């Protein structure tokens, strides 16, 4: 069923269309929530709150941009609001915190790697991972992030840089990422001359 048909059904408050829409997008949206949340239960709470907003505010969707993108924005804002109730986004945490990551075995390597990457993101301190999620994955600018999280734009930039460094080390540690070696050909050719 197309998004257009589902949208029309949801506008009429049709329970079946709402369920279809939920089934279609909830797996992806839950994984988004999971990247922000402290636990799976928190992620499901965020998802529930987010989808209720989606269904109650669906008349505000104006066909600008993709429907999925609109849902994603609502879900992300719901996650941020959820986090803002309890947390501050200016905190900085030691790299040592990231060493305790537990990753379960999985039979499909691509899924395993995706899961590992997500778990590595989730192992970052909350301030780091929120900024990283918003900037690197959701595509918000630092200015927008600053506004959303009520922090300085510069804070968002520095958080992002630190988060990225921390995550890179983690991914290397977990053998997911291997840094490219420095390109030294230009140096050796200069020496030859």
């Amino acid at each position, binding site marked *: *069923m197309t998004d257009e*048909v589902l949208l029309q059904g949801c506008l009429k*408050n049709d*329970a*079946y269309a*709402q*369920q*279809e829409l*939920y*089934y*279609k997008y*909830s*797996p*992806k949206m*839950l*994984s*988004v929530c*999971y*990247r922000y949340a402290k636990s*799976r239960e928190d*992620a*499901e709470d965020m*998802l*529930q709150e987010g*989808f*209720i907003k989606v*269904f*109650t505010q669906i008349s505000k969707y104006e066909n600008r941009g993709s429907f999925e993108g609109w849902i994603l924005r609502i879900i992300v804002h719901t996650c941020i609001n959820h986090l803002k109730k309890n947390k501050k986004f200016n905190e900085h945490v030691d790299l040592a915190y990231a060493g305790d990551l537990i990753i379960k075995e999985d039979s499909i390597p*691509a*899924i395993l*790697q*995706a*899961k590992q*990457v*997500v778990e590595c*993101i989730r192992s970052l301190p909350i301030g780091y991972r929120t900024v*990283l999620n918003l900037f*690197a*994955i959701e595509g918000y600018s630092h200015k927008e992030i600053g506004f959303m999280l009520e922090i300085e734009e510069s804070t968002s930039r520095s958080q992002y840089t630190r988060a*990225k460094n921390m*995550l*890179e080390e983690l*991914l290397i540690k977990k*053998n*997911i*990422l*291997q*840094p*490219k070696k420095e390109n030294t050909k230009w140096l050796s050719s200069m020496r030859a001359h």
Partner: protein
Amino acid sequence: MKRYSKEELDELLKEKSDQYLLYPSDRVWKNIHQELHPSNGWRYASLTVLFFFIASLSIHVKKNELSKGLINNKETLYQYIETPSASLANNTLQLPEIFIPFHGLKQSNDATSINLLASSIMHANTIEHSNEISLPKNISTLPQISLPTAITTTNNITKEEKKHTLSETIDLVVTTAKKISKDIKWQLYGGPSIGYRSLEGKATRNIYQYAVYSLSTNAVFARDVKDVVNHRPAMGFELGTAMIYPLSKRINVRAGIQANYNQYQIKAFSAIPEIATYAVNNSNSSTPLSAVSVYRNNQGLSPATIQNEHYMISLPIGLDYRVSGTDKLNFSVGSSIQPTYVFANFSYLLSSNLQNYAKEPSLNRNWNINGAVEASVNFEHKGFRWSIAPQFRYQMLSSFKEKYPIKENLMDMGIKIGIIKTIK
């Protein structure tokens, strides 16, 4: 392991995050659905409101009847208090040896007791009657009171008569409520009914099955079950017995046991045996239930009629309200709640793709709650009381368990004929 530059890290994160999917538990959708469509509880709410309405009405009527009894006999009591002016001059008055029910006041000969008795009656009476007479706070002032002429005309009643009148009056008041509560009745009833059902929802899948089947079966799953089912009513019956306890002259409460037989018919087609699958709303299992089907919903070898039958036993508890008439002939309305156990269920369930009918007993619900309303004409004939009542019965919960996505609520419309005998 891939080699990534720092610049490519963002791409990696986005790519891997997009690949990662998580499936939420059923709880999430249930909560969302409940939040968006809270009206599902209207049946319970309306029934509860109806029950409490009738219950409060019965209390109100009972109070009024008690008050009426007091009002009717109050005048005589006033006569007794007012008339013997000679005796009152000494502030003494002989009262009969009885126990006065109001406020647990025990009879005594002093004037204060009379005053309290009068106050009690005034208190028990309603406000609209309070302006008929105003009694003094002190009995010694009684001779100066100007009383209504209707009362003062009875001054020629003898002392013995007065004593007798008061005794009768209070006895009558005391026994009014007692008399009402003693007429317990027994009722045997039964009658034919027409059984049918309401269907709600669409066949659907759980979230795992959505991911698996969405490409091939979306069109099928978009259809409403009401649009693809051809069903029609069929005859059923009910048989029961109840004890009836009067709360007041107008209100009765009744409780008993009742057997119901409900059936309806489905137009289908016989077919060669095939597997019918039932996708259930259960996150613990992504494998649908399956059963062998010899009936198809749309096309098949030849037209066939399926009988869905239910045998139930229930415990109705309800209230009746007499709208008009006398004990010999009256018109009443009533409602009841009936916890019900379905002890035999011969039902064919529609498969998830809406194509097949098959029996899948694991999806049937055994315990349910019925609600019934009725309007009855009651009359006396040859020492028995008869009741003829058109009634409507509705099953509150679906015939199927929660995990089956289609909701079915049985309903019966029938004529209940009853015979009632007073046993006490």
